[in-house]
Protein backbone atom coordinates (compact mmCIF):
# COMPACT_ATOMS: atom_id res chain seq x y z
CA UNK A 1 0.00 0.00 0.00
CA UNK A 2 2.82 2.42 0.80
CA UNK A 3 4.54 2.96 -2.49
CA UNK A 4 5.87 5.92 -4.42
CA UNK A 5 2.83 6.42 -6.64
CA UNK A 6 0.12 7.33 -4.20
CA UNK A 7 1.66 10.04 -2.08
CA UNK A 8 -0.97 12.63 -1.11
CA UNK A 9 1.08 14.91 1.10
CA UNK A 10 4.80 15.25 1.25
CA UNK A 11 6.89 17.64 3.28
CA UNK A 12 10.56 18.09 2.48
CA UNK A 13 13.21 19.50 4.79
CA UNK A 14 10.64 21.43 6.76
CA UNK A 15 12.09 23.73 9.41
CA UNK A 16 10.53 26.56 11.30
CA UNK A 17 11.87 28.98 13.84
CA UNK A 18 9.94 31.27 16.20
CA UNK A 19 12.09 34.12 17.51
CA UNK A 20 15.17 31.99 17.70
CA UNK A 21 13.37 28.88 18.90
CA UNK A 22 13.70 25.99 16.46
CA UNK A 23 10.25 24.33 16.63
CA UNK A 24 10.79 21.96 13.69
CA UNK A 25 14.10 20.84 12.20
CA UNK A 26 14.41 19.22 8.78
CA UNK A 27 11.22 17.20 8.92
CA UNK A 28 10.55 14.87 6.01
CA UNK A 29 7.29 13.00 5.89
CA UNK A 30 5.11 11.28 3.32
CA UNK A 31 1.41 10.71 3.78
CA UNK A 32 -0.05 8.16 1.39
CA UNK A 33 -3.44 8.34 -0.17
CA UNK A 34 -6.06 6.59 1.94
CA UNK A 35 -3.92 5.84 4.96
CA UNK A 36 -4.46 6.70 8.59
CA UNK A 37 -1.23 8.19 9.76
CA UNK A 38 -0.73 8.85 13.44
CA UNK A 39 1.81 11.31 14.78
CA UNK A 40 2.89 10.92 18.36
CA UNK A 41 5.45 12.68 20.47
CA UNK A 42 5.90 14.37 23.82
CA UNK A 43 4.50 17.83 24.64
CA UNK A 44 6.19 20.56 22.67
CA UNK A 45 7.54 18.11 20.08
CA UNK A 46 6.15 20.25 17.27
CA UNK A 47 3.09 18.25 16.25
CA UNK A 48 0.71 21.20 16.18
CA UNK A 49 3.36 23.33 14.52
CA UNK A 50 3.60 20.72 11.76
CA UNK A 51 -0.14 21.03 11.14
CA UNK A 52 0.08 24.81 11.13
CA UNK A 53 2.60 24.58 8.31
CA UNK A 54 0.52 22.14 6.28
CA UNK A 55 -2.69 24.18 6.61
CA UNK A 56 -1.08 27.54 5.94
CA UNK A 57 -1.46 28.95 9.43
CA UNK A 58 2.25 29.65 9.51
CA UNK A 59 5.00 29.50 6.91
CA UNK A 60 8.17 27.44 7.20
CA UNK A 61 11.59 29.05 7.45
CA UNK A 62 12.86 26.49 4.97
CA UNK A 63 11.41 23.48 3.22
CA UNK A 64 8.30 22.84 1.18
CA UNK A 65 4.87 21.26 1.51
CA UNK A 66 3.64 19.33 -1.53
CA UNK A 67 0.01 18.30 -1.82
CA UNK A 68 -0.75 16.00 -4.74
CA UNK A 69 2.56 17.16 -6.14
CA UNK A 70 1.62 20.85 -5.97
CA UNK A 71 3.71 23.18 -3.86
CA UNK A 72 1.30 24.75 -1.36
CA UNK A 73 3.90 26.32 0.90
CA UNK A 74 2.90 29.81 1.98
CA UNK A 75 -0.59 29.72 0.49
CA UNK A 76 -3.45 31.11 2.59
CA UNK A 77 -5.59 28.84 4.74
CA UNK A 78 -8.65 29.83 2.74
CA UNK A 79 -7.05 28.70 -0.50
CA UNK A 80 -5.58 25.53 0.96
CA UNK A 81 -8.98 24.59 2.29
CA UNK A 82 -11.02 25.53 -0.73
CA UNK A 83 -8.75 24.47 -3.56
CA UNK A 84 -6.76 21.61 -2.08
CA UNK A 85 -9.39 20.24 0.29
CA UNK A 86 -7.47 19.90 3.50
CA UNK A 87 -9.59 19.99 6.65
CA UNK A 88 -8.35 20.40 10.16
CA UNK A 89 -9.62 19.86 13.67
CA UNK A 90 -7.78 21.90 16.25
CA UNK A 91 -6.32 20.85 19.54
CA UNK A 92 -9.07 21.53 22.07
CA UNK A 93 -12.50 22.05 20.51
CA UNK A 94 -12.55 25.09 18.27
CA UNK A 95 -16.18 25.56 17.24
CA UNK A 96 -18.65 28.45 16.92
CA UNK A 97 -19.86 28.64 20.50
CA UNK A 98 -22.95 30.81 20.34
CA UNK A 99 -24.48 28.96 17.43
CA UNK A 100 -26.45 25.74 17.37
CA UNK A 101 -24.88 22.37 16.62
CA UNK A 102 -26.74 22.21 13.33
CA UNK A 103 -25.66 25.71 12.31
CA UNK A 104 -22.07 24.74 13.04
CA UNK A 105 -22.28 21.79 10.66
CA UNK A 106 -24.10 23.84 8.02
CA UNK A 107 -21.41 26.51 8.03
CA UNK A 108 -18.75 23.86 7.48
CA UNK A 109 -20.52 22.09 4.59
CA UNK A 110 -18.44 21.65 1.50
CA UNK A 111 -18.93 23.89 -1.51
CA UNK A 112 -20.79 26.82 0.02
CA UNK A 113 -18.00 29.03 1.26
CA UNK A 114 -17.75 31.58 -1.56
CA UNK A 115 -19.76 34.78 -1.32
CA UNK A 116 -21.87 34.02 -4.39
CA UNK A 117 -22.65 30.52 -3.18
CA UNK A 118 -23.77 32.02 0.13
CA UNK A 119 -25.95 34.66 -1.50
CA UNK A 120 -27.75 32.19 -3.73
CA UNK A 121 -27.83 29.45 -1.16
CA UNK A 122 -30.95 27.38 -0.99
CA UNK A 123 -31.37 24.63 1.57
CA UNK A 124 -32.05 21.65 -0.65
CA UNK A 125 -33.32 18.29 0.58
CA UNK A 126 -29.95 16.77 -0.30
CA UNK A 127 -28.20 19.39 1.84
CA UNK A 128 -30.47 18.69 4.80
CA UNK A 129 -29.95 14.93 4.42
CA UNK A 130 -26.21 15.34 4.37
CA UNK A 131 -26.31 17.48 7.52
CA UNK A 132 -28.48 14.90 9.28
CA UNK A 133 -26.16 12.12 8.17
CA UNK A 134 -23.17 13.87 9.70
CA UNK A 135 -25.11 14.63 12.89
CA UNK A 136 -25.78 10.91 13.06
CA UNK A 137 -22.15 10.01 12.50
CA UNK A 138 -20.99 12.12 15.43
CA UNK A 139 -23.94 11.01 17.55
CA UNK A 140 -25.28 14.53 18.04
CA UNK A 141 -28.53 14.30 16.09
CA UNK A 142 -30.63 14.66 19.24
CA UNK A 143 -28.50 17.62 20.24
CA UNK A 144 -28.79 19.49 16.95
CA UNK A 145 -30.69 22.44 18.43
CA UNK A 146 -28.23 22.84 21.33
CA UNK A 147 -25.95 25.81 21.57
CA UNK A 148 -22.45 24.48 20.97
CA UNK A 149 -21.47 26.04 24.30
CA UNK A 150 -24.06 23.87 26.11
CA UNK A 151 -22.44 20.62 24.97
CA UNK A 152 -20.06 18.56 27.06
CA UNK A 153 -16.36 18.71 26.27
CA UNK A 154 -16.39 15.38 24.45
CA UNK A 155 -19.41 16.35 22.42
CA UNK A 156 -17.71 19.55 21.37
CA UNK A 157 -14.77 17.48 20.13
CA UNK A 158 -17.19 15.38 18.11
CA UNK A 159 -18.91 18.45 16.78
CA UNK A 160 -15.62 19.70 15.43
CA UNK A 161 -14.87 16.31 13.89
CA UNK A 162 -18.31 16.50 12.27
CA UNK A 163 -17.55 19.94 10.91
CA UNK A 164 -14.34 18.70 9.35
CA UNK A 165 -16.18 15.75 7.82
CA UNK A 166 -18.80 18.15 6.46
CA UNK A 167 -16.03 19.89 4.54
CA UNK A 168 -15.45 16.58 2.79
CA UNK A 169 -11.69 17.08 2.56
CA UNK A 170 -9.28 14.74 0.84
CA UNK A 171 -6.99 15.03 3.83
CA UNK A 172 -8.35 15.26 7.35
CA UNK A 173 -6.00 16.42 10.08
CA UNK A 174 -7.09 15.79 13.65
CA UNK A 175 -5.13 17.33 16.50
CA UNK A 176 -5.72 15.35 19.69
CA UNK A 177 -9.35 14.44 18.99
CA UNK A 178 -9.80 12.50 22.22
CA UNK A 179 -8.21 14.98 24.63
CA UNK A 180 -10.35 15.32 27.73
CA UNK A 181 -12.64 12.41 26.86
CA UNK A 182 -13.73 9.53 29.06
CA UNK A 183 -12.50 6.05 28.10
CA UNK A 184 -15.91 5.24 26.58
CA UNK A 185 -15.96 8.43 24.56
CA UNK A 186 -12.39 7.82 23.40
CA UNK A 187 -13.30 4.37 22.16
CA UNK A 188 -16.34 5.73 20.36
CA UNK A 189 -14.19 8.38 18.73
CA UNK A 190 -11.81 5.68 17.55
CA UNK A 191 -14.64 3.85 15.84
CA UNK A 192 -15.82 7.10 14.28
CA UNK A 193 -12.38 7.74 12.87
CA UNK A 194 -12.05 4.22 11.54
CA UNK A 195 -15.28 4.75 9.63
CA UNK A 196 -13.76 7.81 7.99
CA UNK A 197 -10.79 5.83 6.72
CA UNK A 198 -11.37 4.62 3.19
CA UNK A 199 -13.17 7.82 2.25
CA UNK A 200 -10.51 10.18 3.50
CA UNK A 201 -6.82 10.21 4.20
CA UNK A 202 -6.21 11.03 7.85
CA UNK A 203 -3.43 12.44 9.97
CA UNK A 204 -4.16 12.06 13.65
CA UNK A 205 -2.11 13.45 16.51
CA UNK A 206 -2.73 11.68 19.76
CA UNK A 207 -1.22 11.01 23.18
CA UNK A 208 -3.55 8.25 24.31
CA UNK A 209 -1.65 5.06 23.40
CA UNK A 210 -4.71 2.79 23.71
CA UNK A 211 -6.40 4.96 21.17
CA UNK A 212 -3.35 4.93 18.92
CA UNK A 213 -3.28 1.13 19.02
CA UNK A 214 -6.99 1.10 18.20
CA UNK A 215 -6.71 3.15 15.01
CA UNK A 216 -3.13 3.48 13.81
CA UNK A 217 -1.74 1.95 10.64
CA UNK A 218 1.38 3.95 10.28
CA UNK A 219 3.06 6.06 12.93
CA UNK A 220 5.57 8.90 12.93
CA UNK A 221 7.22 9.87 16.19
CA UNK A 222 8.30 13.48 16.64
CA UNK A 223 10.68 14.59 19.32
CA UNK A 224 12.21 18.04 19.82
CA UNK A 225 11.01 19.06 16.39
CA UNK A 226 12.62 16.14 14.63
CA UNK A 227 11.41 12.83 13.27
CA UNK A 228 12.59 10.23 15.72
CA UNK A 229 11.16 7.16 14.06
CA UNK A 230 8.50 6.02 11.70
CA UNK A 231 6.90 2.73 10.81
CA UNK A 232 3.97 0.47 11.53
CA UNK A 233 2.50 0.39 15.01
CA UNK A 234 4.36 -2.81 15.73
CA UNK A 235 7.71 -1.44 14.62
CA UNK A 236 7.23 1.68 16.70
CA UNK A 237 6.26 -0.21 19.81
CA UNK A 238 9.43 -2.24 19.55
CA UNK A 239 11.72 0.65 18.72
CA UNK A 240 14.14 1.10 21.60
CA UNK A 241 14.66 4.80 21.03
CA UNK A 242 10.93 5.48 21.02
CA UNK A 243 10.45 3.44 24.15
CA UNK A 244 13.18 5.45 25.84
CA UNK A 245 11.82 8.91 25.10
CA UNK A 246 8.12 8.40 24.82
CA UNK A 247 6.56 5.08 25.63
CA UNK A 248 8.31 4.61 28.94
CA UNK A 249 5.76 6.83 30.68
CA UNK A 250 2.98 4.33 30.02
Amino acid at each position, binding site marked *: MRNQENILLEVKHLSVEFNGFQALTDVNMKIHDGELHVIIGPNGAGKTTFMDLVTGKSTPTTGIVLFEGVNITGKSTTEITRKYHIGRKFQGPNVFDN*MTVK*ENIEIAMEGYSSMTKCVFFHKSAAFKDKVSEILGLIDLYDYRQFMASDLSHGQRQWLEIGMVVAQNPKLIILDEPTAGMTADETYKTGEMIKRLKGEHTLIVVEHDMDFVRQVAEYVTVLNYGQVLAEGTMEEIQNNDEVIAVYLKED
Partner: protein
Amino acid sequence: MENKKNILDRFKALPVNRYLDLIVLVFLLVFPLFCSNYWVYVMSGIIAYMIFALSLDLLWGYTGLMSMGHSVLFGAGGYMVGISCAYISKAGWVDFDRLPWFLLPLSSEIGAFLMALVLPALISLMIGFFMFSGKIKGVFFSLITLALSGVAELFVINQSKYTHGNSGISVISRTVISNSKEARLDDFTFYYVVLAFLILAYIICLMIVNSRIGKVLQAVRENEERLTFFGYKPSAFKLLIYTISGMIAGLAGVLYVRTQGNINSSAVGITLATLVLVWVAIGGRGNLTGAMVGTLVLQIAETKLNSVFSGISADFTQYWKMVLGFLILLIVFTIPKGIVGTIIDVQQKHKDRRQKEKILLREETAYHEESGKHIA
Protein backbone atom coordinates in the same frame (compact mmCIF):
# COMPACT_ATOMS: atom_id res chain seq x y z
CA MET B 1 -56.01 20.89 8.81
CA GLU B 2 -52.59 19.39 8.34
CA ASN B 3 -51.36 22.69 7.03
CA LYS B 4 -52.82 24.62 9.92
CA LYS B 5 -50.98 22.49 12.42
CA ASN B 6 -47.79 22.99 10.52
CA ILE B 7 -48.08 26.75 10.72
CA LEU B 8 -48.87 26.50 14.42
CA ASP B 9 -45.76 24.38 14.95
CA ARG B 10 -43.65 26.85 13.11
CA PHE B 11 -45.00 29.64 15.29
CA LYS B 12 -44.11 27.66 18.39
CA ALA B 13 -40.59 27.09 17.13
CA LEU B 14 -39.95 30.85 16.90
CA PRO B 15 -37.54 32.23 19.48
CA VAL B 16 -39.13 34.33 22.24
CA ASN B 17 -37.85 37.58 20.87
CA ARG B 18 -40.00 37.30 17.74
CA TYR B 19 -43.04 37.56 20.04
CA LEU B 20 -41.46 40.63 21.59
CA ASP B 21 -41.09 42.07 18.10
CA LEU B 22 -44.79 41.57 17.61
CA ILE B 23 -45.57 43.34 20.87
CA VAL B 24 -43.33 46.24 19.87
CA LEU B 25 -45.04 46.42 16.50
CA VAL B 26 -48.53 46.48 18.00
CA PHE B 27 -47.41 49.08 20.52
CA LEU B 28 -46.03 51.31 17.79
CA LEU B 29 -49.10 50.83 15.62
CA VAL B 30 -51.58 51.95 18.27
CA PHE B 31 -49.35 54.47 20.02
CA PRO B 32 -50.48 57.60 18.10
CA LEU B 33 -54.11 56.83 18.89
CA PHE B 34 -53.53 57.59 22.54
CA CYS B 35 -51.04 60.40 22.42
CA SER B 36 -50.58 64.07 21.87
CA ASN B 37 -49.17 65.41 18.62
CA TYR B 38 -45.98 66.24 20.46
CA TRP B 39 -45.42 62.62 21.42
CA VAL B 40 -46.24 61.45 17.93
CA TYR B 41 -43.46 63.74 16.74
CA VAL B 42 -41.07 62.53 19.43
CA MET B 43 -41.85 58.93 18.65
CA SER B 44 -41.22 59.42 14.91
CA GLY B 45 -37.68 60.44 15.82
CA ILE B 46 -37.30 57.45 18.12
CA ILE B 47 -38.43 55.12 15.35
CA ALA B 48 -35.80 56.60 13.04
CA TYR B 49 -33.27 55.92 15.80
CA MET B 50 -34.54 52.34 16.03
CA ILE B 51 -33.67 51.85 12.37
CA PHE B 52 -30.23 53.27 13.15
CA ALA B 53 -29.84 50.82 16.04
CA LEU B 54 -30.83 47.93 13.76
CA SER B 55 -28.06 48.88 11.35
CA LEU B 56 -25.53 48.81 14.19
CA ASP B 57 -26.84 45.48 15.43
CA LEU B 58 -26.10 43.89 12.04
CA LEU B 59 -22.54 45.08 12.35
CA TRP B 60 -21.83 44.75 16.05
CA GLY B 61 -24.36 42.24 17.32
CA TYR B 62 -24.13 39.78 14.47
CA THR B 63 -20.67 40.30 13.05
CA GLY B 64 -18.82 41.43 16.16
CA LEU B 65 -17.57 44.66 14.59
CA MET B 66 -18.07 47.25 17.29
CA SER B 67 -18.24 50.49 15.35
CA MET B 68 -17.86 53.41 17.74
CA GLY B 69 -18.48 55.91 15.00
CA HIS B 70 -21.63 54.68 13.34
CA SER B 71 -23.10 58.18 13.45
CA VAL B 72 -20.81 59.12 10.54
CA LEU B 73 -23.03 57.06 8.24
CA PHE B 74 -26.25 58.27 9.86
CA GLY B 75 -25.16 61.88 9.48
CA ALA B 76 -23.86 61.39 5.94
CA GLY B 77 -27.36 60.32 4.94
CA GLY B 78 -28.93 63.23 6.77
CA TYR B 79 -26.57 65.79 5.30
CA MET B 80 -27.31 64.70 1.75
CA VAL B 81 -30.92 65.63 2.31
CA GLY B 82 -29.94 68.79 4.17
CA ILE B 83 -27.57 70.13 1.51
CA SER B 84 -30.00 69.25 -1.24
CA CYS B 85 -32.85 70.99 0.52
CA ALA B 86 -30.79 74.14 1.12
CA TYR B 87 -29.59 74.18 -2.49
CA ILE B 88 -32.99 73.61 -4.08
CA SER B 89 -34.86 76.06 -1.85
CA LYS B 90 -31.98 78.57 -2.08
CA ALA B 91 -31.53 79.10 1.63
CA GLY B 92 -30.20 82.53 2.62
CA TRP B 93 -26.72 81.31 3.58
CA VAL B 94 -26.12 79.40 0.35
CA ASP B 95 -23.52 81.31 -1.65
CA PHE B 96 -22.62 78.68 -4.20
CA ASP B 97 -24.28 78.43 -7.59
CA ARG B 98 -23.37 74.93 -8.40
CA LEU B 99 -22.62 71.79 -6.44
CA PRO B 100 -19.25 70.03 -6.67
CA TRP B 101 -19.37 67.19 -9.19
CA PHE B 102 -19.70 64.40 -6.67
CA LEU B 103 -22.71 66.11 -5.11
CA LEU B 104 -24.47 66.82 -8.41
CA PRO B 105 -27.26 64.29 -7.75
CA LEU B 106 -28.33 66.55 -4.89
CA SER B 107 -29.83 68.99 -7.38
CA SER B 108 -32.83 66.69 -7.64
CA GLU B 109 -34.98 65.46 -4.78
CA ILE B 110 -34.87 61.83 -5.81
CA GLY B 111 -31.15 62.13 -6.44
CA ALA B 112 -30.66 63.40 -2.92
CA PHE B 113 -32.61 60.51 -1.43
CA LEU B 114 -30.57 57.99 -3.41
CA MET B 115 -27.33 59.74 -2.49
CA ALA B 116 -28.38 59.53 1.16
CA LEU B 117 -28.33 55.75 0.78
CA VAL B 118 -25.38 55.42 -1.60
CA LEU B 119 -22.90 57.78 0.05
CA PRO B 120 -22.98 56.11 3.51
CA ALA B 121 -22.64 52.75 1.75
CA LEU B 122 -19.62 54.04 -0.17
CA ILE B 123 -18.06 55.51 2.96
CA SER B 124 -18.38 52.22 4.84
CA LEU B 125 -17.15 50.33 1.80
CA MET B 126 -14.03 52.47 1.73
CA ILE B 127 -13.37 52.43 5.47
CA GLY B 128 -14.07 48.70 5.50
CA PHE B 129 -11.79 48.03 2.57
CA PHE B 130 -8.81 49.68 4.23
CA MET B 131 -9.47 48.20 7.64
CA PHE B 132 -10.30 44.65 6.63
CA SER B 133 -7.59 44.26 4.03
CA GLY B 134 -5.20 45.79 6.56
CA LYS B 135 -6.35 43.12 9.01
CA ILE B 136 -7.48 45.72 11.54
CA LYS B 137 -9.61 43.96 14.12
CA GLY B 138 -11.30 44.16 17.48
CA VAL B 139 -10.57 47.16 19.61
CA PHE B 140 -8.51 48.81 16.85
CA PHE B 141 -11.51 48.80 14.56
CA SER B 142 -13.52 50.43 17.33
CA LEU B 143 -10.94 53.08 18.06
CA ILE B 144 -10.44 54.02 14.42
CA THR B 145 -14.18 54.35 13.83
CA LEU B 146 -14.40 56.46 16.98
CA ALA B 147 -11.66 58.74 15.71
CA LEU B 148 -13.39 58.99 12.33
CA SER B 149 -16.52 60.20 14.03
CA GLY B 150 -14.57 62.94 15.75
CA VAL B 151 -12.91 63.89 12.47
CA ALA B 152 -16.26 63.90 10.68
CA GLU B 153 -17.70 66.33 13.20
CA LEU B 154 -14.83 68.76 12.63
CA PHE B 155 -15.01 68.25 8.88
CA VAL B 156 -18.69 69.13 8.79
CA ILE B 157 -18.13 72.27 10.86
CA ASN B 158 -15.22 73.32 8.64
CA GLN B 159 -17.05 72.80 5.38
CA SER B 160 -19.50 75.52 6.29
CA LYS B 161 -19.90 76.56 2.67
CA TYR B 162 -22.03 73.48 2.15
CA THR B 163 -23.03 72.51 5.67
CA HIS B 164 -23.64 75.92 7.22
CA GLY B 165 -21.14 75.02 9.94
CA ASN B 166 -22.28 75.05 13.53
CA SER B 167 -25.72 76.45 12.76
CA GLY B 168 -26.71 73.44 10.72
CA ILE B 169 -29.28 73.28 7.95
CA SER B 170 -33.06 73.65 8.11
CA VAL B 171 -34.89 71.01 6.17
CA ILE B 172 -38.50 70.72 5.06
CA SER B 173 -39.89 68.31 7.61
CA ARG B 174 -42.41 65.47 7.45
CA THR B 175 -41.75 64.48 3.87
CA VAL B 176 -39.56 61.66 2.71
CA ILE B 177 -38.35 62.85 -0.65
CA SER B 178 -40.00 66.13 -1.53
CA ASN B 179 -38.61 69.53 -0.52
CA SER B 180 -41.77 71.53 -1.00
CA LYS B 181 -43.85 72.86 1.89
CA GLU B 182 -47.07 71.69 0.24
CA ALA B 183 -45.95 68.09 0.37
CA ARG B 184 -45.66 68.07 4.16
CA LEU B 185 -47.68 65.41 5.86
CA ASP B 186 -49.32 65.85 9.24
CA ASP B 187 -47.53 64.39 12.27
CA PHE B 188 -49.87 61.45 12.41
CA THR B 189 -49.44 60.34 8.80
CA PHE B 190 -45.71 60.96 8.80
CA TYR B 191 -45.39 58.79 11.90
CA TYR B 192 -46.83 55.85 9.99
CA VAL B 193 -44.54 56.51 7.04
CA VAL B 194 -41.52 56.29 9.33
CA LEU B 195 -42.97 53.20 10.97
CA ALA B 196 -43.40 51.60 7.54
CA PHE B 197 -39.68 52.20 6.93
CA LEU B 198 -38.86 50.58 10.27
CA ILE B 199 -40.88 47.52 9.32
CA LEU B 200 -39.13 47.42 5.96
CA ALA B 201 -35.69 47.75 7.56
CA TYR B 202 -36.59 45.10 10.13
CA ILE B 203 -37.71 42.64 7.45
CA ILE B 204 -34.53 43.22 5.45
CA CYS B 205 -32.40 42.70 8.56
CA LEU B 206 -34.35 39.58 9.49
CA MET B 207 -33.89 38.13 6.03
CA ILE B 208 -30.18 38.83 6.13
CA VAL B 209 -29.57 37.32 9.56
CA ASN B 210 -31.60 34.21 8.80
CA SER B 211 -29.85 33.61 5.49
CA ARG B 212 -26.62 31.71 5.06
CA ILE B 213 -24.83 35.07 4.87
CA GLY B 214 -26.21 35.88 8.31
CA LYS B 215 -24.93 32.60 9.71
CA VAL B 216 -21.49 33.21 8.26
CA LEU B 217 -21.51 36.67 9.86
CA GLN B 218 -22.24 35.11 13.22
CA ALA B 219 -19.41 32.68 12.65
CA VAL B 220 -17.14 35.65 11.94
CA ARG B 221 -18.19 37.06 15.29
CA GLU B 222 -17.62 33.76 17.08
CA ASN B 223 -14.30 32.81 15.57
CA GLU B 224 -13.07 34.57 12.49
CA GLU B 225 -9.85 32.62 12.08
CA ARG B 226 -11.58 29.25 12.32
CA LEU B 227 -13.75 30.28 9.40
CA THR B 228 -10.77 30.51 7.06
CA PHE B 229 -10.16 26.81 7.69
CA PHE B 230 -13.56 26.16 6.15
CA GLY B 231 -12.57 28.03 3.00
CA TYR B 232 -14.23 31.37 3.76
CA LYS B 233 -12.82 34.84 3.22
CA PRO B 234 -14.17 36.65 6.30
CA SER B 235 -13.13 40.09 5.07
CA ALA B 236 -15.50 39.87 2.08
CA PHE B 237 -18.41 39.13 4.37
CA LYS B 238 -17.45 41.91 6.75
CA LEU B 239 -17.24 44.35 3.88
CA LEU B 240 -20.67 43.33 2.61
CA ILE B 241 -22.40 43.77 5.95
CA TYR B 242 -20.60 47.03 6.69
CA THR B 243 -21.85 48.42 3.39
CA ILE B 244 -25.44 47.28 3.97
CA SER B 245 -25.32 48.57 7.51
CA GLY B 246 -24.09 51.92 6.23
CA MET B 247 -26.96 52.17 3.81
CA ILE B 248 -29.54 51.44 6.50
CA ALA B 249 -27.89 53.96 8.82
CA GLY B 250 -28.11 56.51 6.02
CA LEU B 251 -31.83 55.83 5.65
CA ALA B 252 -32.28 56.31 9.38
CA GLY B 253 -30.44 59.63 9.09
CA VAL B 254 -32.80 60.83 6.36
CA LEU B 255 -35.89 59.91 8.35
CA TYR B 256 -34.55 61.51 11.50
CA VAL B 257 -33.70 64.75 9.73
CA ARG B 258 -37.09 64.77 8.08
CA THR B 259 -38.69 64.38 11.49
CA GLN B 260 -36.64 67.10 13.16
CA GLY B 261 -36.65 69.58 10.28
CA ASN B 262 -32.95 70.32 10.70
CA ILE B 263 -29.51 68.76 10.86
CA ASN B 264 -26.28 69.85 12.48
CA SER B 265 -22.83 68.46 13.14
CA SER B 266 -23.96 66.45 16.16
CA ALA B 267 -25.60 64.02 13.69
CA VAL B 268 -22.16 62.71 12.72
CA GLY B 269 -20.60 63.15 16.14
CA ILE B 270 -19.29 61.03 18.95
CA THR B 271 -22.24 61.62 21.29
CA LEU B 272 -24.74 60.00 18.95
CA ALA B 273 -22.26 57.26 18.08
CA THR B 274 -22.00 56.44 21.79
CA LEU B 275 -25.73 56.68 22.38
CA VAL B 276 -26.54 54.09 19.76
CA LEU B 277 -23.95 51.75 21.27
CA VAL B 278 -25.67 52.12 24.62
CA TRP B 279 -29.13 51.42 23.18
CA VAL B 280 -27.92 48.24 21.53
CA ALA B 281 -25.89 47.14 24.54
CA ILE B 282 -28.75 47.64 26.97
CA GLY B 283 -31.35 46.04 24.70
CA GLY B 284 -29.07 43.15 23.83
CA ARG B 285 -26.90 42.48 20.82
CA GLY B 286 -27.37 40.07 17.98
CA ASN B 287 -31.11 39.46 17.95
CA LEU B 288 -32.54 42.65 16.34
CA THR B 289 -35.19 42.87 19.05
CA GLY B 290 -32.74 44.16 21.62
CA ALA B 291 -31.60 47.01 19.41
CA MET B 292 -35.18 48.16 18.91
CA VAL B 293 -36.32 47.66 22.50
CA GLY B 294 -33.20 49.30 23.91
CA THR B 295 -33.68 52.39 21.76
CA LEU B 296 -37.37 52.57 22.51
CA VAL B 297 -37.07 52.20 26.27
CA LEU B 298 -34.06 54.46 26.76
CA GLN B 299 -35.28 57.20 24.47
CA ILE B 300 -38.76 57.26 25.99
CA ALA B 301 -37.21 57.27 29.44
CA GLU B 302 -34.90 60.11 28.51
CA THR B 303 -37.69 62.24 27.04
CA LYS B 304 -40.02 61.60 29.96
CA LEU B 305 -37.41 62.19 32.64
CA ASN B 306 -36.18 65.24 30.83
CA SER B 307 -39.58 66.90 30.96
CA VAL B 308 -40.22 65.82 34.54
CA PHE B 309 -36.91 67.08 35.89
CA SER B 310 -36.64 70.25 33.86
CA GLY B 311 -40.05 71.08 35.31
CA ILE B 312 -38.51 71.04 38.76
CA SER B 313 -35.35 72.97 38.05
CA ALA B 314 -32.89 73.33 35.19
CA ASP B 315 -30.03 71.95 37.29
CA PHE B 316 -31.89 68.74 37.82
CA THR B 317 -31.45 67.61 34.23
CA GLN B 318 -27.76 67.20 34.98
CA TYR B 319 -28.51 64.93 37.92
CA TRP B 320 -30.90 62.59 36.22
CA LYS B 321 -28.45 62.13 33.37
CA MET B 322 -26.00 60.92 35.97
CA VAL B 323 -28.63 58.63 37.43
CA LEU B 324 -29.44 57.25 34.00
CA GLY B 325 -25.75 56.76 33.29
CA PHE B 326 -25.36 54.90 36.56
CA LEU B 327 -28.35 52.68 35.75
CA ILE B 328 -26.89 51.88 32.36
CA LEU B 329 -23.57 50.89 33.92
CA LEU B 330 -25.42 48.71 36.40
CA ILE B 331 -27.25 46.90 33.61
CA VAL B 332 -24.09 46.40 31.58
CA PHE B 333 -22.36 44.83 34.59
CA THR B 334 -25.23 42.69 35.86
CA ILE B 335 -26.57 41.49 32.51
CA PRO B 336 -23.82 41.88 29.93
CA LYS B 337 -26.03 40.35 27.26
CA GLY B 338 -28.60 43.11 27.64
CA ILE B 339 -32.28 42.78 28.42
CA VAL B 340 -33.47 40.78 25.43
CA GLY B 341 -30.18 38.91 25.15
CA THR B 342 -30.57 37.64 28.69
CA ILE B 343 -34.16 36.54 28.09
CA ILE B 344 -33.13 34.58 25.00
CA ASP B 345 -30.17 33.09 26.84
CA VAL B 346 -32.26 31.86 29.74
CA GLN B 347 -34.80 30.35 27.36
CA GLN B 348 -32.12 28.56 25.31
CA LYS B 349 -30.39 27.17 28.41
CA HIS B 350 -33.73 25.97 29.72
CA LYS B 351 -34.60 24.35 26.40
CA ASP B 352 -31.21 22.61 26.20
CA ARG B 353 -31.51 21.31 29.75
CA ARG B 354 -35.00 19.89 29.13
CA GLN B 355 -33.90 18.25 25.90
CA LYS B 356 -30.89 16.73 27.66
CA GLU B 357 -33.11 15.24 30.37
CA LYS B 358 -35.32 13.76 27.68
CA ILE B 359 -32.38 12.19 25.88
CA LEU B 360 -30.89 10.75 29.07
CA LEU B 361 -34.25 9.30 30.08
CA ARG B 362 -34.64 7.66 26.69
CA GLU B 363 -31.14 6.21 26.83
CA GLU B 364 -31.81 4.84 30.29
CA THR B 365 -35.04 3.09 29.27
CA ALA B 366 -33.31 1.68 26.22
CA TYR B 367 -30.54 0.38 28.47
CA HIS B 368 -32.99 -1.25 30.88
CA GLU B 369 -34.92 -2.91 28.08
CA GLU B 370 -31.67 -4.21 26.67
CA SER B 371 -30.54 -5.70 29.99
CA GLY B 372 -34.07 -7.03 30.57
CA LYS B 373 -33.80 -8.98 27.34
CA HIS B 374 -30.48 -10.46 28.40
CA ILE B 375 -31.92 -11.74 31.66
CA ALA B 376 -34.90 -13.25 29.88
